[in-house]
């Protein structure tokens, strides 16, 4: 029998499949379709200190084998997430969830992360220093090693839960960013967030997205994500959570061979709401096809 268990920063997952933040909401819509407890965990919609509506619409555009989004961190703010969403989530998901945290200052990150880390349900803090759709915030922390290590260290001091830093691919040297976060105390690295992209409306001769640019996700980015997971896993000793265009059990295995300990599935949830369940179900068969007994055996197998 194929052993799909993995251990992410001290917490065992029944399998490495984790829906990515922003593509799974708080899980409610998916819980209508299948028992989401088949998932290893899930990273719920990114939380900020204050409530946010996000960017004006249109926020979505299509691309070849992918999509652009410029949602801009819409969320009810950390207090409402704690008082309303987490209790509701606990009714549909009984395992530890991953709390994705965004902010506009080190203080924001520290405050939101520490509030969420106090919640028993929360297994990991995923520090999103890579949102490309929020001006003067998010990604700026993720493109400069100094700021990245600063915010990582500050949050590290403030939270007792495993801290995973989510990186942006919109940098020249991903390994340098990952190393900066590792030495600042991160317990793990997750990547890639979306690649900055754009589309133009030929009739209006204006950007399709009101925000002008948006984040590219979907199978189109898989080879770039895989390369960055590989480079990151080569550079750091802490676990790497791979994501970016994952759409099948084979993609999960490929990510793990590149060095991922767990794998987040993003955009695919939006076009196939059963995607994560399908991948969890297909994983043992794919493992058998490629002669894998324990999934942990292949982590970094291609490094």
């Amino acid at each position, binding site marked *: 029998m194929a052993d799909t268990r993995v251990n992410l920063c001290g917490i065992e997952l029944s399998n490495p499949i984790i829906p990515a933040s922003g*593509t799974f909401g708080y899980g409610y819509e998916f819980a209508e*379709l299948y028992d989401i407890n088949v998932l290893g965990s899930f990273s719920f919609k990114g939380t900020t200190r204050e409530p946010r*509506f996000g960017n*004006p619409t249109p926020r979505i555009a299509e691309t070849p084998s992918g999509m652009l*989004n410029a949602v801009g961190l819409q969320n009810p703010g950390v207090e409402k997430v704690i008082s309303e969403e987490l209790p509701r989530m606990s009714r549909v998901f009984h395992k530890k969830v991953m709390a994705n945290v965004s902010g506009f200052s080190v203080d924001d990150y520290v405050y939101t992360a520490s509030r969420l880390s106090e919640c028993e349900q929360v297994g990991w803090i995923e520090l999103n220093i890579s949102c490309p759709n929020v001006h003067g915030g998010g990604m700026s922390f993720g493109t400069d090693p100094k700021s990245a290590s600063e915010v990582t260290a500050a949050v590290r001091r403030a939270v007792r839960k495993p801290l995973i830093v989510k990186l942006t691919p919109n940098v020249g040297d991903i390994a340098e960013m990952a190393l900066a976060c590792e030495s600042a105390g991160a317990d793990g690295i997750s990547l890639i967030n979306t690649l900055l992209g754009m589309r133009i409306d030929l009739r209006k001769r204006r950007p399709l997205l009101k925000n002008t640019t948006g984040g590219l996700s979907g199978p189109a980015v898989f080879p770039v994500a895989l390369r960055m997971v590989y480079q990151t896993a080569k550079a750091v000793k802490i676990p790497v959570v791979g994501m970016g265009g994952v759409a099948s059990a084979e993609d999960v295995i490929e990510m793990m061979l590149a060095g991922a300990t767990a794998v987040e599935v993003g955009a695919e949830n939006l*076009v196939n*709401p059963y995607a994560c369940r399908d991948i969890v179900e297909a994983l043992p068969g794919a493992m058998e096809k490629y002669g894998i007994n324990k999934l942990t055996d292949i982590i970094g197998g291609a490094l």
Partner: protein
Amino acid sequence: MKEAVFEITENRPLTENVFRMVLSGKEAETLRPGQFVNIRLDGLYLRRPISVCDAEGDRLTLIYKVVGKGTDLMSKMTGGRLSLLVGLGNGYDHEKSGGSPLLIGGGVGVPPLYMLAKELKRSGKDVGVVLGFSTKSEVFYEDEFRALGCSVTVATADGSYGKKGFVTDALPEKYSYVYTCGPEPMLRAVYAKITTSGQFSFEERMGCGFGACMGCSCKTVTGYKRICRDGPVLEKEEILWQTQG
């Protein structure tokens, strides 16, 4: 919401670029007026949301305008099976109609009103319908609404057919409630003109179509809403018009 596979049984043009596709699938009977389906198309990443024009037994009718790659692809289909996400959106609430509801549709905003008209007639309402098009060659479904027993007025912007002008130039004196769907400028005009309450169906670019991605959010009097999940139908009283940017 669930995924269901439908079989294409008919797909033909109603006007130069408006097509009607009829599909067969057992989930059709679960669909309500004002809801939409989200269609997976080979070679395109995102599904395509299309409003439900009619659903009876296992027969689902969609009317769509060819505006881009997806609808162009659809218009060329002669048969085969499609994966649909069904049961999307809140739909119209016909309970609120009163005795003489008025249905106002513009262009591709017309189709979702058809199934609603059907239901309202069944419950014995006196249904008025105002349909707006830009020109005569683009008019469709007038006869279908008449066949339901609705009193139909058609308006064309260039006066080439029916009343000259916009739907707001063709409103009757009396009506108990309004149900409308169409381009936002039309919805704004209807909002300003009507003398009763009503329900407005909105369009927005969507990611998932079922509420997961927050791609189609809008601000309302009652807070943020997802057009795809909390809408596409909003009560007149909760609408907050965004200033055009």
